[in-house]
């Protein structure tokens, strides 16, 4: 397998793996926030803010791999 074909397979699979991981992460974060909101509806504002911050940090990891995908995209030879 030449490097171009390896990139062509690797970029989408790697991006999918990154999305898989951060999907689980954000799911757990939102689950926790939702449970806390259900338990303490008066704290919804603060919980939402903290959840958004956490989700932003988790999501950033996928975005890094997306950026890397864009960077490497030009190196995939046209089929």
């Amino acid at each position: 397998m030449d490097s171009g074909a390896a990139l062509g397979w690797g970029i989408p699979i790697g991006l999918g793996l990154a999305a898989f991981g951060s999907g689980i992460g954000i799911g757990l974060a939102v689950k926790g926030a939702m449970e806390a909101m259900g338990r303490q509806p008066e704290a919804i504002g603060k919980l939402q803010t903290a959840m958004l911050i956490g989700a932003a940090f988790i999501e950033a990891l996928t975005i890094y791999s997306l950026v890397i995908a864009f960077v490497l995209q030009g190196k995939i030879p046209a089929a």
Partner: protein
Amino acid sequence: MLAMWQSHAESGQSDAHDVHDDALHSAQGADGSTHAADAHAGAQMDEHAGGHDADHGGGHEAEHHHGPKVPELPNLLGVVHNYAYLVETKPEYASLKNPFTGTVMQVDHFAKGLGLDDSNGDHFTAFETIIFGFVVVIALCAFFIGASRQLKVRAEKGQKLNGKAMFTEIVYTFLEDFFAGIVGRDSVRKHLPLIGTLFIYILCCNTFGLLWLGKAPTANLSFNLAMAAIVFLYVHGTAIMKSPAGWLAHFPGSLPSPKEMGGLAYVLAPILAVLFTVIHIMELFIQPASLALRLYGNVLGKDVLLGVFGGLIPYFPTHAPFLFLGLLLGAIQALIFSLLSSVYILMWEPHEHHHDDHHEHAGAHA
């Protein structure tokens, strides 16, 4: 990212070499041609140079213009530029010549020479970003200057209240309440001019990309890095101005004291101090970089999604359902950029030892 910039710097250089080689080559061709005595030497050289460079331009077009590397929806400046480029690649239209070599100059090389080439390899996108960025600035200025005129609480007979001002007040109240929950009610008015402006500006930039023939300026890494640099300077500027010692004390963090741990603290504290200082210095630069990258990746990802779906069927808006997704994403990313900026402000401002505060907790995540 560094690698990306470097590769671009290299490609720019190699292109510059190409131009140089072309010029040399055509000059040699003119010198070496046997019937140079018959024709006017200068005209001959011009013709050679023009023909050669037109070829070169054609090759370039194949490289750059046969579909951009990253699919995106057309925008006004891109359409105009592509038309201008088409005209320019035809030698009979080319009138702009380099006075030194007699070769035709390409817009491409101008842009690269000025460092305006950006990561997409599509040479004009940097101009588009800058121009559309300023369009949003001018639109916002026009709106908010209008909103600050004729402020009245009660209308006289036959007068109307300033609707823009009322709308602005609603927006301002929302922003103040929201950020008061993070930086605290007492300091929100100090920081809101920057954070609130960032929120409104990024929101408008993101939404601008959804308009027909518009393009989101935030889909460009340099643009976002500039905003992140402003946040970086503001965060550390305010922290240092408040208390330079407090800012420095942030680097080693809170170390174990002999009171809590006994003699072990004398061994542990220096090691931990060095370790935390290294980590915090890295954090210093990772924070603005991740701020910029997050916005860039999200908005570019959205633009590519719209570009792919918009290109499925010609002249039919297959991407319409995703416009709503884009609206939501733009709002959330604007909120997250300003939210994280305020969290960084809070994180880096000197500690006053109120650990029961929830603000400290929010900062600990970052």
